[in-house]
């Protein structure tokens, strides 16, 4: 009641403001609307709807989460298996990827993959499997509400009687090898940045880290080692009620819910799988203050794709206030609002210099997800080959000035208000709310039922510019590990200009063709 009254008052003030504007509009109609300061929206008056999800514990270690809505036409079901890729030895990880794919590709019950495809088409069902950020296999399905029983039947067969056809594994290998060749074409920005990202991980985490092997794991040498026996062995480990999480959202009946509950309770209960997130958490030892650099030369590129990263290993886990601070700092340095030249990074790299079409930087608090002891500030940009040294110098200078000189009260106010207003512009559905809560729970967090309101309050408290500047000073003095990876075709002059900078330590210069052959 109090909330409603408050909301009404705020509306009256909004209307009064609108009237005043309307009275003046004749005088001002020819004048353009010019930005002065962002207008804070009255978010306190918004009665945020709780995300009222339910948890039903199922004997034997399974959890069933639900978020119903009768106003949508579909439902979504996600079954998250308890095992994780991170619990496996490096040699088994490619096989775990194969298991995820072959749960459908290998056929199940009486159905071959081709029959499954046909069944899905006829009934308009979306069914797929994938490995999530926690390294767990997710079986995901969605369909019109009337088709719940059909979907449940498919999930049941997939879980209880996967076939793992031998011929399907052969086709999987063939397709995986083709995918790898396609990646090695490295013709699009996405593929190029995947390779660049991999090199940055090697610089920071060493050759043997899980992330550093993300491309090698999908190479023909690893793909061709996968056997049906190993897949079946991994399936037996994963087919376990103990630690299983199931999510249902959207329009379904109580009867549907009971059937799902019954299905889960039939899954065998075994000992829980003990897994760690990412056991390898050692950052490459820093020998000096220089930026460890790799140049990957691809002779047909006219523009270089660049990532410059500062890895911080001594922050520990960020608390909620620090998370909000870093969100603001990222926004001021490189806005996510599609704004060109309104933040430090795009102003320097694009608006002022015209060097880079889509520069973007962000703070990644979970480099070793979800162990937040290692975080990184990542600056990604493009540069014409002939301006590489200049582009890197501008990026370095923009970053170091940001840390050393800090931000102004005005920048803080603009960014905070913009971020808070943006939260009010989110388009919520029952399905993205369910996914949001699922993400938090699977990361081991206790979710907030009103996540938007919580973030608004966290941001609203950050009004003191000296505190934000202290965080920047802390970043500056944290002695991060700096890395630089360039994929492009800079000439000898540019390389010489780049490496003559006293803070650049060129560790490797790789030819792209040789890189491809290394697999």
């Amino acid at each position: 009641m109090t909330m409603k009254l408050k909301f009404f008052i705020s509306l009256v003030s909004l209307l009064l403001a609108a009237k005043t504007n309307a009275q003046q509009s004749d005088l001002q109609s020819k004048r353009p609307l010019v930005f002065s300061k962002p207008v804070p929206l009255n978010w306190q008056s918004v009665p945020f709807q709780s995300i009222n999800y339910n948890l039903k514990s199922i004997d034997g270690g399974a959890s069933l989460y639900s978020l119903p809505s009768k106003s949508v036409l579909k439902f979504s079901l996600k079954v998250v298996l308890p095992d994780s890729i991170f619990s496996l030895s490096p040699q088994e990880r490619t096989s775990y990827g194969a298991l995820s794919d072959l749960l459908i590709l290998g056929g199940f019950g009486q159905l071959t993959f081709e029959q499954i495809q046909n069944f899905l088409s006829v009934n308009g069902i979306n069914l797929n499997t994938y490995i999530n950020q926690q390294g767990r296999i997710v079986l995901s399905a969605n369909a019109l509400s009337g088709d719940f029983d059909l979907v449940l039947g498919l999930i049941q067969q997939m879980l209880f009687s996967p076939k793992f056809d031998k011929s399907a594994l052969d086709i999987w290998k063939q397709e995986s090898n083709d995918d790898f060749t396609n990646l090695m074409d490295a013709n699009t920005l996405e593929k190029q940045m995947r390779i660049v990202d991999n090199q940055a991980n090697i610089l920071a985490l060493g050759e043997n880290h899980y992330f550093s092997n993300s491309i090698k794991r999908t190479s023909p040498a690893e793909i061709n080692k996968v056997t049906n026996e190993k897949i079946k062995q991994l399936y037996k480990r994963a087919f376990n009620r103990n630690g299983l999480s199931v999510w249902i959202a959207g329009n379904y009946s109580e009867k549907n819910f009971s059937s799902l509950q019954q299905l889960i309770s039939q899954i065998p209960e075994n000992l829980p799988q003990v897994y760690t997130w990412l056991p390898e958490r050692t950052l490459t030892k820093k020998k000096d203050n220089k930026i460890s650099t790799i140049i990957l030369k691809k002779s047909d590129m006219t523009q270089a794709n660049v990532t410059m990263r500062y890895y911080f290993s001594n922050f520990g886990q960020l608390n909620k206030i620090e998370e909000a601070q870093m969100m603001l700092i990222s926004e001021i340095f490189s806005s996510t609002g599609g704004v060109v030249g309104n933040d430090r990074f795009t102003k320097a790299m694009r608006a002022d210099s015209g060097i880079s079409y889509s520069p973007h930087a962000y703070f990644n608090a979970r480099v070793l997800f979800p162990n937040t002891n290692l975080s990184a500030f990542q600056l990604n940009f493009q540069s014409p080959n002939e301006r590489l040294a200049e582009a890197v110098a501008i990026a370095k200078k923009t970053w170091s000035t940001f840390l050393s000189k800090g931000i102004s009260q005005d920048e803080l106010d603009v960014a905070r208000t913009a971020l808070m207003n943006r939260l009010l512009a989110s388009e919520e559905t029952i399905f993205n709310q369910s996914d949001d809560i699922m993400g938090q729970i699977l990361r081991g967090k206790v979710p907030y039922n009103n996540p938007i309101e919580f973030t608004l309050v966290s941001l609203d408290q950050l009004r003191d510019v000296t505190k934000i500047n202290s965080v920047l000073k802390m970043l500056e003095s944290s002695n991060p590990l700096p890395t630089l990876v360039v994929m492009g075709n800079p000439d000898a002059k540019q390389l010489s200009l780049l490496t003559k900078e006293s803070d650049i330590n060129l560790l490797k210069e790789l030819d792209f063709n040789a890189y491809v052959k290394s697999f």
Partner: protein
Amino acid sequence: MLKKCSIVFALLFSNIANAAAQSNADVADIVMGSTNKAYKYTLSNGLKLIVVPDTRNPLATLHFILDAGSDRETPGTTGLAHFFEHMMFRKSMGAPEGNYDRVLNSFGGTGNAGTSDSFVTFYSSFPAPAIETMLKLEADRFTNLDITEPYFSTEKGAVISERKLRVENDPVQRSHEILRSIVQRGTPMEWMTIGSKADVENMSLAAAKQFYKDYYTPDNTLLVLGGPFKPQQALAMVEKYFGTWQGKLTKKRTPYLASYFTRDLGKSFVCSAPVLTKRYQITYPAPSKNKDDAIENLIYSTLFQAMLDDHLEGTFNRRLVKLQLATEFNFYKMYWLNETQPYLASFALSKNQDFEKAKEFWLKNVQEVLNKPVTTKIKNQVIKQMAVSNAESAELMTSLVNTVIDNTFFLHNFKAAGKGEEMIKRLDDKKFKSWIKTNLNEKNFYVTGIVPTGDATPCTNFKLQE
């Protein structure tokens, strides 16, 4: 959430309701199964406005789409449509540079734009209470853009960088640019939307100003406004800010000569680039004909694909992979283009695979579809897939807005909802088979291909053999 929005906007709009024009809207369903409707108006200056009221979230969206894509350009000014899209974000008269983004961002809004061969689009989403501010901001740039130096030249740098990112750094796109200049010769599709490097570098202020005058006119624009608004009140607001927008579209398109659709049939244009995967495309040229055909062609191509995939051995793509004839396949109609709307079958092949075999398999399967009856099962399947797609669109206001744009701008039918389902239910088997014979005829296509270095003439040296 629903209650909140309805209260806010019922009150907000009571202030301007009296000022609203008393126009009758053309009303249409958007997708079957959704209660949301679309309301269409035409302002006296020709601006077409569609309002999509939706109170589920306190979110609004403005989506402008103009027939001002790169097929409006001429040789020497290629890339202008796209370059102009960039300029729309830089400066309006009397406002500082970058003002649009700053205001949008200050409200927590996000936006972007895109240019294609046949259209340019600008869209933003923001908290609904900012609607008037956003309309004024949009009106500033649509009616009073300030195309001046040094922003004009600085933006060239960003466009050149984008060209490098999207075209020059990608051997497939680089080669595609060359092949396109050959197969689309003599038409405004000859160049890529982003334009040639030389034209972008030499872009003149005068050409940009002329493009703005010629094509950024109200009668060449569709605005779709979505959010928790009453249609009449939304109309009043749009009239307030866009009602005085002047300008007339006078430039007309030159229809393609009939020979465009036949001149290359049976030919093959294959060249090489530094890639590992082979990429081929079978193109069936097809004129856009008249507006009434747009939905029918799209529905028939959907039905054709469903029949192609309906096979004991799996979908067409799966069978290609199993037989090791190709690694990837796609079939679609380019229904968004203006003068030509070809059907395309594209294939990716590994080094040892032979395109001739994949092509032979494709032609055999087209023939098989032609000889199969259209079963009730297939009809029901297509209708079911439409129902699923409708349910997905109904979930988000922004998806409903996109559907309205698809129906109105590309399919030229504001009331397209349900037409596809109806068409499938009442399918004339003979007409459908005749459509296959005409549009996917085994003699009516040409082939383009990009293969690894050494397998053909390098694309950089590739020329049209007359």
